[in-house]
């Protein structure tokens, strides 16, 4: 993998990331911080962004790629506007989280990790948000919903669809 051969556009997003990288240049072990920032800016981490990070931090692209693929939080594919993250932690599982995932699959016609055709929703699962008392729990972007059942699934989808 040769970092420099990938063309990197000069735009606002890259300038923001570049400025962040400058600010952490003297910090030891900055890669994961930079990846968090990049995913915040771009929404995901395509090869192009990884190549940019590799060049700027002077870390081999294979290392950057290795780290991106190791951690579940980093995604190399674009995500929908709303990421529906259903908790599959133990407490939620015991309270029927598996069914909640099925309801979404049913209603959105996508599988886990997939995005709807209109790019509105991505369906994913996670392991415990620390709100186990409300199981089953899900998050849509940063909003937490507890005691989710079939009715609530329909309501949630309706709400975000109307927001567009």
């Amino acid at each position: 993998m040769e970092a420099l051969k990938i063309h990197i556009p000069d735009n606002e997003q890259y300038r923001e990331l570049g400025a962040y990288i400058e600010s952490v240049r003297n910090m030891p072990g900055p890669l994961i911080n930079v990846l968090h920032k990049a995913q915040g800016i771009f929404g995901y981490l395509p090869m192009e962004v990884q190549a940019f990070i590799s060049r700027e931090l002077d870390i081999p692209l294979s290392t950057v790629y290795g780290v991106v693929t190791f951690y579940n939080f980093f995604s190399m594919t674009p995500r929908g506007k709303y990421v529906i993250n259903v908790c599959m932690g133990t407490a939620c599982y015991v309270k029927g989280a598996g069914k909640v995932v099925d309801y979404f699959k049913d209603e959105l016609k996508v599988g886990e990790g997939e995005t709807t055709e209109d790019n509105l929703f991505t369906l994913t699962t996670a392991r415990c948000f620390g709100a186990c008392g409300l199981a089953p729990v899900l998050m849509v972007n940063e909003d937490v919903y507890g005691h989710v059942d079939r009715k609530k699934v329909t309501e949630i989808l309706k709400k975000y669809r109307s927001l567009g």
Partner: protein
Amino acid sequence: MAHRMNVLVCSGASCISNNSLKVKEALLAEIERLDLKREIKVIETGCMGPCQLGPVLLVYPDETLYKKVQVADVREIVEQHFLKGRPVERLMYKSPLTDELVHKSRDVDYFKKQYKIVLANCGSIDPESLDEYIAVGGYEALGKALTEMNPDSVLDEIKISGLRGRGGGGFPTHLKWMFTKNEKSKEKYVICNADEGDPGAFMDRSVIEGDPHTLIEGMAIAGYVVGASKGYIYVRAEYPLAIERLEKAIAQAKETGFLGENIFQTDFSFDLEVRVGAGAFVCGEETALIHSIEGKRGTPRPRPPYPSASGVWGKPTVLNNVETYANVRHIILNGGAWMAKIGTETSKGTKVFALSGTIKNTGLAEVPMGTTIRELIYDIGGGAPEGHEIKAVQLGGPSGGCVTPEYFDTPIDYESLTALGAMMGSGGVIAMDETACMVNTAKFFLDFTCFESCGKCVPCRVGLKQMYGILDKITKGEGEEEDIEALETLGKTIKATALCGLGQTAPNPVLSTIKFFRHEYEEHIFEKKCRALVCKDLISYEINKDACKACTLCAQKCPVDAIKGERGVVHEIQQEKCISCGNCYDVCPFGAVMRLSGEN
């Protein structure tokens, strides 16, 4: 200026998702409207514990606990209680035993058996206010350690207290600190493990969100003892609010001089940095966590060397859990002997548990070590919901095991739980009733650990997959006689040969369910029966002819047109077409669809 009344609004994760912040806004608006701002103060606090009752309000000095408060209730509370002094009874907590109103929060059953050290400030102070922390004795322990004690005498108190790691292993904290202290190195580090990977545990989150300075203070004291001037707090990315509050608290502490250069005018300097995880369970393991802080893939490495000799950046490092550090200031202020009086012979102090699953009162509870499992799940947790019965509790998450009712009188400490084949772990307690299938539960945990295995060593990467495959077969009704033995043999081998704690403990949930619920395994294998009616392939659906009102609803919802019948004609499921999706069972308004397993 003192206020006549303080209203604490819980803003733990559970209450926030139940609208507590809107309730707070409504309170502020009402107070503004009635011009009570100088008399009544509204404080946003961390998790108070009884998440099931959320959103929760606690009113001081009356100690009134309001439960499930909604925006629409706010006006009544303000007008009746705050203005006229008449608490709103319909929103107050009632004892489920006597059905009587409970007037003081401390008399609420949920709190009665608790003993709060670690959670003392959670839910009683504003986590974003350093002043409030200082008002309850905050940073006094750090001051005492730095100005009246030396590292050795601090270490002595920790030793006397008997404090052991709350992150799972229960390793004596003073030993860890001593090993690091004895290393000769100019550069040393203090790390806090706030990765909280056990799904079903959320005490670390609550401590950070509810009382972040307690953690900072504990880490600074550790830094003083071992001679470190820098620390890292590794927080999982799933906890954005915790990260925000921690960053804020660190900034406050730096500004005020509790962190930074020459703290309390001594020559001790200490700085903290938050590092955010990226979603990998194995990063809770200490050597993997250190790799992750260094910006690398979070794979574990063999120990020794232990982090105390070679930790982050290859330097001596003390690494402890959030709850462990949260105990430190109390030990310094009250003396180690004080804590040594609480608990059992081998386990001192308290432990915070997160209660969830099929239990009435879910939430956080801090109890003295030695409390029995029964007290925890019945006296505090309220037992199973009406009409259900708890058949097991899972302790220690994916590394732990289950405990059955005949052992519920066991006093909780590190050794007794391990002896039962479970584990203290981080304190996740998940109650399961007759609707949980133990084979499927074991499969659930293995699915988790297979997914989270870092893949570095063969027993874990390959062995766990094999175990998962066998469990999958059993839940699908394809189990064979020799499968149980195969699971046991594989499990024991993996435990003995895996490189890190993940692999070494991953078989536990399987081995422990086989030990206590062998009959469920056998039913799946020999009778093709799942008594909990969970395993889809072992369930069939039938319509009870006498109850069917021929409404056609089920036939409309069946995705494969397996239901014969029309209006006025009793419906019938054609078994060869049915895919056991359960839709008909869910929609029948007359409960005429029956779920069966192992009947033929």
